[in-house]
């Protein structure tokens, strides 16, 4: 019996779904389910879940709720600081998903009634669901630094959700004095995109080296170490004088002497033991939690993230709600767009199995994460992840890790792969 091949699905989208309903047999079960899955959040996780549920079973009705008409990707947004991309080039719309027969509703969910399996949107419209996929991304904890608050993020941008914040930080970088200082306040674990602050420093340094070579970037880190540290430090040494007096980048671990307050007028940060750091540009990336709707709906625990059952991505706290992406507690899988896509596919398979009353197969997650140190110097980290009998998630031991080949040709090749991987991931999620 012919089944929908991935190629056919990609080629013909909604048209093939229609054909399937009337003719061929879908991958899972007969064309009888007619269940309704609502996906909340149109980032990498939500978009992938919506698309792949339709791919696995085109008889399932899928609605995606997302307030923004276009989405600006966080991945690759650091490249803007090096002048390698624009917000326009980072933008995707939802036409690709609509072509698969996904109903895209441009609105915000204000309430989830888990008992009645019903959502209320800001327009007061209500939607019933059989299964809900929540992919709300992150929110910030604004109370971690005395003297700092949400309003001040307009002066000290986090730029950790790509868009106007990214543009604002870039404008500040370009406008600062030629010998100015940028302070990047990295967040504590766990947070979206573990190598992000360090790729950001690299991309800013790339631009500063050409335009303000007397400037300096200081990364103030609440952690003792960071993602791909050896590779970043080697790259910084090679390109930005890291470790020398005139280094463009300095990394300071404040693990035993955390930042406690901000003097907004003086643009000065103070630590527990009274050390002060002043800058011209302050990129304060606050500690993070699951997105607001997940917290308000009772899907998070004291960690601020949403516990899930790994096999199905279903919430450990509320039934029929599946949480994927940065908001979910999938540790040790890092909070990356690639991982969100991987979690979304496993979740889509599980939901389709559940709706067709079939056994759920064991998820096989993966993460690959590339970063640029210069446009021609790329590095990566990768691994596969598995669920164990005790319901824990672990990295597969025999594999993974950071780039092993660090000769110039391999690093240049990884830089090229960085850009291709970003564009292809985007296509896999949104088109």
């Amino acid at each position, binding site marked *: 019996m012919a089944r929908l091949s991935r190629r056919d699905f*990609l080629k013909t989208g909604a048209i093939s779904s229609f054909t399937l309903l009337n003719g061929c047999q879908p991958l899972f079960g007969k064309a009888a389910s007619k269940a309704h899955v609502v996906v909340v959040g149109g980032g990498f996780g939500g978009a992938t879940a919506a698309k792949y549920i339709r791919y696995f079973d085109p008889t399932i009705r899928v609605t995606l709720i997302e307030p923004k008409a276009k989405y600006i990707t966080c991945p690759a947004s650091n490249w803007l600081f090096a002048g390698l991309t624009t917000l326009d080039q980072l933008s995707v719309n939802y036409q690709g998903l609509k072509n698969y027969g996904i109903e895209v509703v441009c609105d915000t969910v204000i309430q989830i009634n888990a008992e009645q399996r019903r959502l209320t949107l800001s327009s007061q419209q209500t939607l019933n669901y059989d299964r809900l996929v929540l992919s709300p991304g992150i929110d910030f904890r604004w109370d971690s630094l005395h003297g700092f608050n949400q309003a001040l993020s307009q002066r000290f941008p986090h730029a950790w959700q790509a868009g106007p914040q990214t543009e604002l930080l870039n404008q500040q970088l370009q406008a600062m004095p030629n010998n100015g200082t940028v302070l990047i306040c990295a967040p504590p674990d766990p947070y979206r995109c573990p190598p992000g602050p360090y790729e950001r420093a690299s991309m800013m340094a790339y631009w500063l080296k050409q335009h303000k070579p007397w400037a300096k970037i200081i990364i103030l880190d609440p952690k003792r170490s960071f993602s791909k540290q050896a590779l970043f430090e080697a790259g910084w040494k090679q390109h930005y004088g890291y470790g020398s007096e005139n280094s463009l980048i300095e990394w300071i671990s404040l693990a035993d002497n955390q930042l406690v307050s901000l003097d907004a007028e003086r643009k000065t940060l103070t630590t527990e033991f009274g050390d002060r750091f002043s800058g011209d540009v302050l990129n304060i990336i606050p500690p993070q939690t699951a997105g607001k709707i997940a917290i308000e709906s009772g899907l998070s625990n004291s960690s601020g993230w949403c516990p899930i059952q790994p096999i199905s991505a279903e919430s450990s706290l509320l039934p029929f709600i599946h949480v994927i992406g940065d908001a979910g507690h999938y540790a040790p899988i890092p909070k990356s767009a690639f991982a969100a896509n991987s979690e979304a596919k496993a979740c889509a398979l599980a939901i389709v199995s559940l709706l067709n009353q079939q056994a759920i197969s064991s998820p096989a997650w993966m993460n690959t994460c590339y970063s640029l140190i210069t446009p021609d110097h790329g590095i990566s980290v990768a691994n596969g992840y598995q669920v164990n009998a005790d319901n824990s998630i672990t990295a597969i031991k025999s594999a993974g890790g950071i780039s092993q080949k660090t000769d110039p040709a391999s690093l240049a090749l990884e830089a090229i792969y960085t*850009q291709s*991987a970003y564009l292809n991931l985007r296509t896999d999620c949104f088109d």
Partner: protein
Amino acid sequence: MKLWLLIASFGMLSSASFNSYAELNGQNIALNCFNCHNPKPAANSAIPSLTGYSQQRLQQALLDFKYDKTNATLMPRIAKAYSDAEISAVAAYLSQQ
């Protein structure tokens, strides 16, 4: 009666769709390949689409990555995560796409 038919048809379909656990696992792993190896790759993509290759060729390529028989940056680290049987199942799934 209706319910019975439904259950029976589910049973038949599941055995028809999935011959073995290995095949299932192959799909779950292989879905991750498309993140980078998109069937509709970006213009000038340095990462190839995997469409149009035989199971044998895909399997050999993955085994070569796993056992460091080929010069590559990222794939050896990924291929080492999977048993030879899983790699075979991944290749089988990909070759049918």
